[in-house]
């Protein structure tokens, strides 16, 4: 826990009736830090964001946003939010909607044009939002996040519904905001290359924070097995299998599963086989394997 954190969450609990949606969550995000908040649907990601925004109140625990109480006028000035599946009024056009947000935020309305251009909506801006695609609405949502250089930005599933090019734009916007000192909390229900680009990964499982670390540390902690696939030269597969064990795959290959710390030892033994091995393919655990390890297979 650092004192200069923009977002500081301490032992936060939220109950709805008899069910605990969040159980003693502690989390902090520093200026310029990008934190991915991962979890299945219903793990409590959106609830955590709504608590930070002051849209709902905590059952116990503390939240401080730039040293302020969540939901206070000053805290709202410091925070930007992109809701999941953001919806705007279909009768307004993009420029009008963004101008309304600018006026509510106390920003001059001329900044709107540059923001629309930044998210690639300058041509669609004067058409009604009702005629827009989901991806375009998502980008308008991003444009309003950029209003007034927030100190903390909460993005709820920002990548959902975006095509690959928009995704690329999303990362560059996220990186740009981080470079300007905005602390970012980005939720997602999957661990993909997007979330892997963040500085830290926090994983929620059924309301509990089960991980909060860098990707490298998480991989080391998980100790997930590495997959080695050896392709035999000629019909040597049987002999390789006899000497190394593992599993035979479609006649000509042998697959070995090994722990990260056995890796070098295994490779030495494979090298000793010399001419028997035609090719070697090594697959480290995927991001998805890693995520599944921490988030658990038992879905709520």
């Amino acid at each position, binding site marked *: 826990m650092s004192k200069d954190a923009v977002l500081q969450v301490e032992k936060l609990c939220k109950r709805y009736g008899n069910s605990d949606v969040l159980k003693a969550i502690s989390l902090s995000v520093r200026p310029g830090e990008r934190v991915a908040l991962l979890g299945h649907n219903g793990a409590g990601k959106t609830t955590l964001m709504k608590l930070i925004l002051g849209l709902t109140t905590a059952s116990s625990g503390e939240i401080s946003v730039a040293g302020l109480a969540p939901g206070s006028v000053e805290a709202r000035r410091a925070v930007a939010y992109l809701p999941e599946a953001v919806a705007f*009024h279909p009768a307004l056009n993009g420029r009008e909607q963004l101008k*309304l947000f600018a006026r509510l935020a106390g920003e001059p309305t001329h900044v709107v044009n540059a923001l629309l251009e930044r998210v690639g909506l300058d041509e669609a801006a004067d058409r009604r939002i009702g005629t827009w695609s989901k991806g375009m609405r998502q980008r308008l949502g991003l444009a309003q996040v950029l209003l007034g250089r927030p100190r903390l930005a909460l993005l709820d599933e920002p990548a959902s519904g975006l095509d690959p090019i928009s995704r690329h734009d999303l990362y560059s916007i996220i990186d740009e905001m981080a470079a300007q000192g905005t602390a970012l909390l980005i939720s997602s229900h999957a661990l993909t290359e997007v979330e892997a680009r963040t500085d830290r990964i926090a994983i929620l499982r059924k309301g509990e924070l089960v991980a909060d670390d860098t990707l490298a540390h998480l991989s080391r902690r998980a100790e997930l097995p590495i997959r080695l696939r050896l392709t035999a030269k000629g019909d040597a597969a049987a002999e390789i299998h006899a000497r190394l064990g593992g599993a035979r795959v479609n006649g000509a290959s042998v697959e070995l599963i090994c722990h990260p710390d056995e890796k070098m030892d295994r490779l030495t033994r494979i090298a000793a086989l010399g001419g028997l091995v035609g090719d070697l393919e090594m697959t480290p655990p995927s991001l998805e394997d890693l995520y599944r390890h921490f988030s658990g297979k038992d879905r709520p």
Partner: protein
Amino acid sequence: MINRILAVSATELRISRRNLWVLTASMIMTLFALALTFAGAAPTGALGVDLLTVSVASMTTLSVYLAPLLALMMAFDAIAGDVERGGLALMLTYPVSRGELLIGKFLAHLGTLAFAMTTGFGIAGIAAALSGGAGIESIVALIRLIGTSVLLGGAFLALGYMVSALAGSAAGAAGLAAGLWLIFVVLYDLSLLGAIVYDDGGFFTRSVFPWLLALNPADAFRLWNVAAAEGVALATGMTGAANALPAWVAPASLILWPPLALALARGAFGRVEP
């Protein structure tokens, strides 16, 4: 604060115009007002008043039904609809208070209603004056009708926001709004009528009934218009109840209803978790 209220108001006005509320409401008011004015032209001779007076009397009865209806139709979606679309959660993360949002919406909707009332009653009033004559008194009655109709609409706008905040969904809010209209405009009067018949001219009819009547904004609206103009009173036949009360009661009730209902709506809105 003023800036944020105006921003919300301007946006809501734009939405009202885009989804044709301004046009629809004005057309409904104009058509009904014109139809009533000329359908109700018969008693002019018998009562010895000009056509505009009779027209205002007919339009008063019309407004009792139509002003609350239009107001509720505009208001029921205001909060529940925003919650459903997901827009309210985002709005409330901006430094705008729930009170500012509510007042911003109220001003825009009230402006739309005022425009529709002025257009509808104005056109019908001018038509009546041109074809059947008008006097100073009947012109004042027409202006009073427009003003009180806006007040009545304001009260029901705020009541509409209240049910919009209380209902979990826009569909639920629509149902509650219909119920509200039925209670205030139809059932309240019916039950008072039943009580009068049962009481048969006793204490209730003479002392309690006029006050109960003034408590309902729709009836207060009727009382105010009737009590203030003799000709209108003659044409509506509501002089009895109007004369039993001090002159300030009905206006006070109608003027107090919009702010009180707005306060209730603000209370209900405060409990909404978007």
